[in-house]
Structures are given as C-alpha cells and as structure tokens.
C-alpha cells in the first residue's frame, strides 16, 4: 500500500497555488515535494509529523474530523487522513486563489487509493 501511495505521490502534478506537499505514513516515515524555495523537504516532513500528531490528539479528544486546515499568516496547510492513518498535507499560498479543482482532485485521488487498497 505504501508503495502505491508513493508511486501516486511521485507522479502527481503541481497545480496553481501549491507550495509544497507531504505524506506521512503510519510507520512514521514521510515523503515530501516542494515547488517553493522557502519550503525544504526536511521542513515539510517535520510539518507532516506535527499534522499526524494533531490528528491523533483530535481523535483522543473525540473531535470528529475528516480534514484539518492550519491557517498561518503567510500560507495554509490543508490536510486529510485516510482510515489507515496515512496523512496528506498540502501547503497553499494565501497570495492568490488556489486551483480548487486541482486541490479537490488531489485529495479525492488520495482517498480513492485507500478504497482501492481495501478491495
């Protein structure tokens, strides 16, 4: 399953407004891709660790969730978690309207991989 996600992640194309993105696996490894100078892969992987921690703590606090959005002054981080615990995070610029269709497609594909694997 991890290989499938990795393959999908590596082949995914950037869309308007995306700065970087990362995937955090339940085995606590992570991969990242960046399209902006200020976003190093190491820093994005660290951010994904925090995202995964937060999903866990939200569950512990019985806060029902399907997605989270971290709002910073300079950027947004949109995240989703699959039932198996794999998390996807996408950093988006706040300077321009992002391509919502591209973003929707990205997350839909991510969740669909889970269904495919479950079959």
């Amino acid at each position: 399953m991890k290989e499938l996600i990795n393959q999908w992640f590596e082949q995914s194309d950037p869309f308007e407004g995306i700065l970087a993105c990362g995937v955090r696996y339940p085995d606590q490894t992570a991969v990242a891709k960046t399209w902006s100078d200020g976003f190093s892969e190491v820093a994005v992987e660290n951010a994904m660790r925090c995202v995964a921690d937060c999903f866990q703590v939200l569950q512990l606090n019985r806060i029902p969730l399907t997605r989270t959005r971290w709002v910073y002054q300079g950027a947004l981080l949109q995240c989703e978690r699959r039932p198996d615990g794999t998390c996807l995070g996408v950093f988006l610029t706040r300077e321009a309207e992002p391509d919502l269709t591209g973003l929707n497609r990205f997350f839909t594909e991510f969740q669909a991989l889970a269904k495919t694997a479950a079959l």
Partner: protein
Amino acid sequence: MAQKRKRILFVDDEVGLLDFLQQLMGHFAGPAWEIFTAPDVSKALGILQEQKVDLLVLDIHMPVVDGLQFLGLLQRKFPNVLKVVLTGDATEHHRATCLSNGAELFLEKPRDEGGWRSIFATLHELTRFQPEEGFRGVLRRVGLQDVLQMECLARNSSVLKIHAGSAHGTVFVKEGQIIHAQCGNRIGEDAFNYLMGLTGGEFDVQPFTAPPAQSISGSWEFLLMEAARKRDEQGTIPPPQGHSDSGFPTPTPVPAGERHTPVIVPVIEAATPLIEVSSEDEAGASRGPSVRPQVEELLVCSLQGEVLHEWQCTNTNGRVGFLEFLSQKARQLAQGLPLGEFDRLEVNGENARVVAQIQPDRALFVRTGRVTAESSEGAIQP
C-alpha cells in the same frame, strides 16, 4: 564558539537502565551533554528545582506518579523544558495521550545498540531547538492552587509572591507545609483564603526565606480544600483595581453566576471552506430543509489556561489541554518554513466543525454542528 553543554535528565524506575543510559549516552554525547538520572518523580523534581534542564526523557510506567501524570505536572510548572517519552509500551493510545500532554516525541525503547544510537541522534537533534521565550506563550495552565499543590507534594520550600491589581500577597511553604500567608492587613488563613479566591493576577515562585511569623499550622490538603469551598460559597474575588506589573492583560473575572451565560466572542475571520461541497451535495441540500451551523460549545481561555468564558463545554480541562497542545504544535510545525504567525486550526467533520484559534493574549475553541433551520430557533448563530 564552544556550544553550551546541554543538561539531560532521564527519569525511569529501572535503576539498571538509568546506569546503562548514563554510560551509553555519555559515551555518544561526550562533553556535549551533562546527564542526570532520577528513579522517581520526587527526585526528578528535586533536580529540576536545582538545575536548568534542557531535555527530560521519561518512562510511562512508574510507581506512585506515572509518566502521564508527571507530564501534566511538568507542562504546568516547567513548560519550557523539552519532554520526550521513552517507553517499552508504545501503544497508539499512549502516544496520543503523551503528545497531548506536552511531550515533543514519543519513542520506543530500542533493543540493540544501533537503536540506542538512533535514540541519541534524535534527542541530540531535539536539544538543538531552543524554545522561544514568550512565543505567544506555550499556553501555561498554571493555577496558583496547582503550583501550591506541586510545591507541597514535592516537599519543597519556597515563597509564592502573588500580585493582583493593587493587592500583593505572599505564601510561605516550608518542606511541603504552608506555614504563613499575608496580604495587606490580612494574615494567616484569612489571607490564604483571600489569595486563593482571586481570579486574576500573577505569581512567582521564589527561593524560601524565613517568614516574619508562622501563622498557619493546618495540613496543606485541608487548607486548599477549605479555600476551594470558600471560593465556591462566596464566588471568586476580582483583583482590586490598580496598576499591574503584568506584561499581559489581567483576565477579566467572570462572576460565578455568569459562567454559563452565552457570550459574544471576538469574531473569527470568515472561514470559507477551501474544498467546496460537491454539486450533488449542494443539490441534496437545496431539496431538503435548510441546514445551517449552530454553536454547540465554546471556550475562551487566557494564556495561563484560565477559563475566561465557557458555554456548554463538556470537558473544560480537555479543551484547555488541546489548546495548549495546538499552541505547541503550531510552533513546531512552522519550524524552518516561511509560514508567518499561526492563527487557527479548522477541523471539519461530516456534521461538525471546530475552530481553535491562538491569539497573542487568549485562545478560543468553538465547536459548531449542523442543524435544520426549524430546530435552531433561539440558538446562537456564529
């Protein structure tokens, strides 16, 4: 320039493991680390009182006070000490609980030297991060009662200086017993109860000095319980008006009778969903009765974790704890990234939405649900 030597404290009830860690980590770190060990929480607190510890590594399962309880105490009294849990019982539940109680990392005890080397590398990397003093405050849920309890439990000797508006008070603790309190003309238990009834202000824990008199002789447990009872009976006491030395605004006290009254809170910037609902959902929504959000739970707290306003909050401590966790995580997440200041976390579920906002002087937690228009009459609208 030579790097400052880091002070690392390992807390574990297995004395053999502590000896092993002292030797192995000392070998890996060389002169970069000064290593301390403690077999229980009491000894660990003693070391923390005497030394400025940079990183504390603790086990979960320990007698008397376990690691989870200890994390909670540490988060209140030593919020700037980095904390890492190192355990042989690495369940997902423990992991989530430890992280939500302030642990930076949750690590499993390795079984070979390579594993220990990785642990060392991880801890060493962590000590390179220095917590930023005053960064919007890692929220500190420090209550006067909490600190007094800590001081007494640890059998410490200290002096608590309390400032609230124009009122200045002092509580003396000697070897875990409260022996004297004064505030203006009040002295003894009268002063103690008055100070414990204050809702706002600041306090410092200072080294013990001999009090001018010994005005209290009862057990600290009884004193705290009695103070809590009086506070419930009489309501909380607003700090007297006057100049405050606090760099933070003194929280506005909320009279007991108003605690459950819905309040108007600062308006959050309109949060339009980034991912829109599908056209199918929209069509479905338009066919059925109109659905709109309704506030179901609300909490506003100060940087000190004091609840300023709450409405229908079923787990106040849990929510404050979550805001503390979020404040810490948002800072960690932004490390090395050009994100600017953190504003809020939005959590969207199928039928609920949560917004947790961290502001320079307060934090906000709002949970909303979706209700049909017919059933929402009289409800608060966000």
